[in-house]
């Protein structure tokens, strides 16, 4: 059962393609890692999936189980005004707003879930703090917590480990893996091949060489062609 099917879709800005002929599909409970050099269009692809922008060519279907009210999203960068007054808790709770409903307050179960997520990400003590005064890594974890509150069916993460130290990032990958085992589909952009190898069920390469593989296929190719080295050369 596929949640998302891309067939020969080109993405980009103002008529200029950054990546072409992207094909892949994502099923319920999959863990898709998107790999590619800087500027190869990974973030653009994520935004296209979320319909923040239109594909340049082709159109894609989001089918069974892809429900906008159940998606969590961690942007790579968030432009925020310098002086925005918002506490950590207010930001994290706002993740729940996507279920369409008109209650002017949060439910008890939602508060409990948020608390649990904050505890796993070790930001519970920060909940009353002003967001703009946090360190980069703390901000990243707050936004991840918001995404996790929003995610029921699917979570999209754009370089979630940026700004985190190695212990925090390995714990974060563990918590992502946990919600994946609970049935949430994960689509994640990462630069870390080891992480992709450890957790992903599918791998999508964007850039000059576009390809969509299951992890087993991808491992086979790595051994055969030494894609790693080629990948490094593409970067340069």
């Amino acid at each position, binding site marked *: 059962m596929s949640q998302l099917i891309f067939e020969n879709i080109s993405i980009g800005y103002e008529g200029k393609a950054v990546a072409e002929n992207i094909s892949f599909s994502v099923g319920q409970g999959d863990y898709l890692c998107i790999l590619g050099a800087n500027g190869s269009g990974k973030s653009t692809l994520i*935004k296209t999936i*979320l*319909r*923040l922008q239109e594909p340049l060519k082709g159109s894609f279907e989001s089918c069974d189980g892809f*429900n*906008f*009210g*159940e*998606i*969590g*999203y961690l*942007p790579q960068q*968030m432009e*925020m*005004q310098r*002086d*925005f*007054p*918002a*506490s950590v*808790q*207010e*930001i994290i*709770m*706002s*993740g729940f*707003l*996507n279920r*369409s409903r*008109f209650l*002017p307050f*949060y439910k008890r179960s939602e508060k409990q879930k948020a608390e649990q997520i904050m505890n796993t990400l070790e930001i519970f003590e920060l909940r*009353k703090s*002003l967001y703009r005064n946090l360190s980069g890594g703390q901000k990243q974890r707050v936004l991840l917590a*918001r995404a996790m509150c*929003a995610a029921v069916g699917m979570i*999209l993460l754009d370089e979630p480990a940026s700004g985190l130290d190695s212990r925090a990032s390995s714990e974060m990958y563990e918590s992502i893996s946990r919600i994946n085992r609970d049935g949430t589909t994960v689509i994640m952009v990462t630069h870390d091949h080891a992480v992709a190898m450890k957790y992903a069920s599918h791998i999508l390469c964007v850039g000059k060489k576009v390809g969509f593989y299951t992890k087993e296929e991808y491992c086979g190719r790595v051994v055969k062609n030494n894609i790693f080295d080629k990948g490094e050369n593409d970067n340069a």
Partner: protein
Amino acid sequence: MHELINKFCVYLSYPFVRYAFVVGILVALCSSLLGVTLVLKRFSFIGDGLSHVAFGAVSVATVLGISDNMFLVLPVTIICAVLLLKCGNNAKVKGDAAIAMVSVGALGVGYLIMNIFSSSSNLNGDVCTTLFGSASIMTLTADKVRLCIILSVIVVGFFFVFYHKLFSITFDENFAKATGINVNAYNLMLAVVIAVIVVLAMNLVGSLLVSALIVFPALSSMSIFRSFKSVTVFSVIISVTCTSIGIIIAILASTPVGPTIVAIDLAGYLICRVAGVIVRR
């Protein structure tokens, strides 16, 4: 002091003074409730532009001899709010330039129309009243007060029902959009509400000073408090307080109401800035 209080009590026995207080407090409440969102969303400029549009509409209503000008001013302002919002979203026409164009255009044409067609013997007085609200709050009719109450209830209701969603689309519009919140619909509603607030606030302080009611309480509060909720709550408190003080001073000292309120708001802002610096230490 005793004398002043007595004088004030005598004034309070006049219905028009009580009307002024009711309208003043409602306007202060509505404008500050949404002021934080408007300032943070960079929509406060739209408020300023709209107040000039409302001035133009009042001029036209005056010339046409429409006695209850709200029924012309409110729809015109709402339509302009929606148009300005659409311009702001359209990257090709710069949003702020469009707003400047509309606001200055409305101001100029409004005055021109009044000047050419008005039969009033006291033209400058009329214009001044519309721009600075000098005495208009003292001439409120019971009907206008009733309309004011209804509109305020709508604005406050809108705010309470959509408080969290307003936070979300203000803090991170892309996240809200990506996770399935209909951001465009909320922005549209927000534009309509801005228009309502501008028209309401114009009764109190006149069209040139409307932005002060939207901007000052929000900025004052933001210099002390640190969460969205506390900023919003405190900006309401400070706005209602400053407006009440302003009206009382205006009555006792016979100063124009609008400018007095704005002066008090400014003083409140300066005090909050100082308090903010001390708190941060």
